[in-house]
């Protein structure tokens, strides 16, 4: 049987790697036919910058650059994986789930924003041959894969914690109720040891 405690950190590290690589890969490309008369302008975007072909000056920093937050969550997942391998599950499992959730949230919002941008440029009132196009590229797929693998890894990290978690809850402030069904058992604060007490009073 596969050891979940080993698989979870591996998946978290893989997810972090996919996220880091995906952030630097092109996520989508928009092409504008008819740019400058008869040419075509192609803009390639990753989570950090947007580059134009043919180039228009230096690559522009992306307005909504999501690269930095994605790298932060990737680092958190690696930290969680290291602590999982050191059997510090009580710290690592929540961090893994929080980081994987945050990465999933960022990727979800990014994909929705790209979808909205695609709908927006397709609605432009231009001639059919000059209609811009938006193509989803490998970076987006890597980010989606990173989010999914991260969630699975974080879930497995929680499963590794199950034996501790499934124990019956103990309320520290509550009165301990002892079992009285068996005749051999004694009630709490039960019968004092008579002999000793008598010895003390004497």
């Amino acid at each position: 049987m596969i050891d979940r405690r080993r698989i979870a950190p591996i998946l978290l590290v893989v997810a972090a790697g996919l996220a880091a690589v995906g952030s630097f890969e092109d996520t989508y490309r928009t092409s504008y036919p008819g740019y400058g008369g008869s040419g075509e302008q192609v803009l390639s975007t990753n989570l950090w910058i947007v580059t134009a072909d043919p180039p228009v000056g230096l690559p522009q920093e992306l307005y909504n650059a999501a690269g930095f937050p994605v790298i932060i969550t990737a680092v958190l997942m690696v930290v969680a994986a290291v602590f999982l391998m050191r059997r510090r599950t009580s710290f690592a499992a929540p961090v893994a789930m929080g980081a994987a959730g945050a990465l999933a949230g960022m990727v979800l919002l990014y994909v929705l924003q790209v979808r909205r941008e695609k709908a927006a440029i397709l609605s432009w009132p231009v001639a059919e041959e000059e209609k811009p196009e938006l193509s989803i590229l490998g970076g987006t797929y890597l980010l989606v894969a990173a989010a999914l693998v991260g969630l699975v890894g974080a879930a497995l990290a929680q499963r590794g914690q199950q034996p501790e978690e499934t124990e019956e809850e103990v309320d520290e402030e509550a009165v301990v109720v002892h079992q009285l069904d068996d005749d051999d058992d004694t009630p709490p604060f039960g019968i004092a040891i008579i002999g000793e007490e008598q010895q003390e009073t004497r």
Partner: protein
Amino acid sequence: MTTRRVLGAVLVFVAAGLAVAASFLAAYAVQVELQGRTLRFEATSWLVERDDFRGALLLGPIEYGEGAVGAALVMALSAVLAFRMPAARVGSLLGAGLLAGVAWSAVTSVQGIVKKVADLGAPVPFDVEQGEGITLLVVAAGVAVVSAVLHQELPKRVVEPEGDGAVIHQVEADDSETPPYGFPVIVEPVEPKEQKSD
């Protein structure tokens, strides 16, 4: 369930409500004063509420609504289920993470719009303001993270191994406690001295 975890569950609900409310409030607004008139663009996370520029700014909603509502659903479900299944508490962490990620990206997007409008180089100054929707989303994410931590099991608890059903009593702390399987309850009155004589 301890008071801390009940408070955590209540705050999880509060965060979920704030996140849903944030998605319906204005995310950002762009405004310009032009010849005595005020032109304004305003959008929630779902749709453009007002666009006096008739699409000339090429702006649209920052679509955090689906993510925020999804995170709120995960958190609320986890808080409800955790009363019966303690393992479901992990859902509040997942929801808090989702919400934090969505909020962070939404703030980045607003900052991007501020830069984008500034780069337009318009002769009249455009005023870009972050709406109360984004502010509330950030607050919801903060409350969600705090509540998710409160909702979890803290590692300080020492787990008592359950062996063959025997109850292990604590005897070090308090002298008034009886040891496990100590003296049986004496039903019939017996002379104390007779017991002592053993």
